[in-house]
C-alpha cells in the first residue's frame, strides 16, 4: 500500500466519529474584536454574533496531523452555515465536530485531498443554534 493510500485510509476511518464538545461563552469583547477585524461597524454586534463568528468560538477543523503527511499545504475550499436560532452575547455555546467525508480528487496541478468537517453548535438551553460544514483541502 502506498503512503498516500494509507493516509487516506487512516483519515477515512475517522468519518463520523465525533470529537469531544468544546464549550465557550460568546463574550462581548471577543465579538467586538472579531467584527473590528472584518471591518464591520454594525452596532447590532454589541448584542449578537455576526454570521461567521462561531468559527472563532471553537476550532472548525479537528486537528488531523495525519492529513499533513499529504501535500504541502492547506486550502479552505468553502463553508456553509445553517442558522437555527440567534446567537447572543452571553450565550454559552457547545460545539461538536466530526469528519463527514474524505476523498481524493484530481486537480489541474496534481491530486488534492478533500476533508469535509461538520460542526454542530448548541446553546446553554440545549437548543441547536447552527451547523457548519467546511471543506478543507490538502494540496
Amino acid at each position: 500500500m502506498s503512503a498516500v493510500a494509507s493516509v487516506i485510509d487512516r483519515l477515512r476511518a475517522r468519518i463520523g466519529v465525533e470529537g469531544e464538545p468544546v464549550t465557550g461563552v460568546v463574550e462581548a469583547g471577543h465579538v467586538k474584536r472579531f467584527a473590528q477585524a472584518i471591518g464591520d461597524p454594525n452596532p447590532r454586534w454589541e448584542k449578537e454574533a455576526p454570521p461567521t463568528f462561531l468559527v472563532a468560538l471553537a476550532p472548525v477543523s479537528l486537528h488531523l496531523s495525519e492529513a499533513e503527511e499529504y501535500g504541502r499545504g492547506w486550502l479552505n475550499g468553502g463553508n456553509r452555515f445553517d442558522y437555527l436560532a440567534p446567537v447572543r452575547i452571553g450565550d454559552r455555546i457547545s460545539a461538536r465536530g466530526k469528519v463527514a467525508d474524505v476523498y481524493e480528487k484530481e486537480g489541474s496541478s496534481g491530486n488534492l485531498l478533500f476533508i469535509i468537517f461538520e460542526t454542530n453548535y448548541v446553546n446553554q438551553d440545549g437548543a441547536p443554534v447552527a451547523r457548519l460544514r467546511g471543506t478543507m483541502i490538502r494540496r
Partner: protein
Amino acid sequence: MTVKVGDELPVLVKQPTTRQLVQYAGAQGDFYEIHYDQDYARGVGLPGVILHGLLKAGFLGQLVTDWLGDRGTLKSFEVSYRGVDMPGHAYACKGRVTRVDGNDVELEVWGEDEAGKRTTVGTATVEMHA
C-alpha cells in the same frame, strides 16, 4: 420596501491590509502562517500571504446583513473559495436577489478581485419578517 428578483445589494468595497490579516488571525484564532508570514506562504507555492477564506466570508456576511438590516433573518450562508486574494488589493463584495417565494428570499453573493474575477462565490437565504 418589497424585495424582488434582480435587486442588487449595495456594493461593499474592502481594502484588506496585512495588518488586518493579523487582526483577523487573532480574532478567529487561525494562526496558519500563510496569512502573515511571506516566506512561509511562498514556500508552499503561494504568491505571498493571502486573505483567510473566512475573512472573505465575513466580508460577504457584512454585505448581506447591511442590506438585510432588521427586515428579516439569515437562515443559511454558503461560500466557495475559487481563488486567492492578497492584501493591498481592493476586494469588492456584490450580490443580487435570485429568488423570492413569499417571505423566503435567496441571494447570490460574490467577491471580486481588482480584475473583476469572482474569487469567492456563494448564496444566502433569508426569511423576511411578515
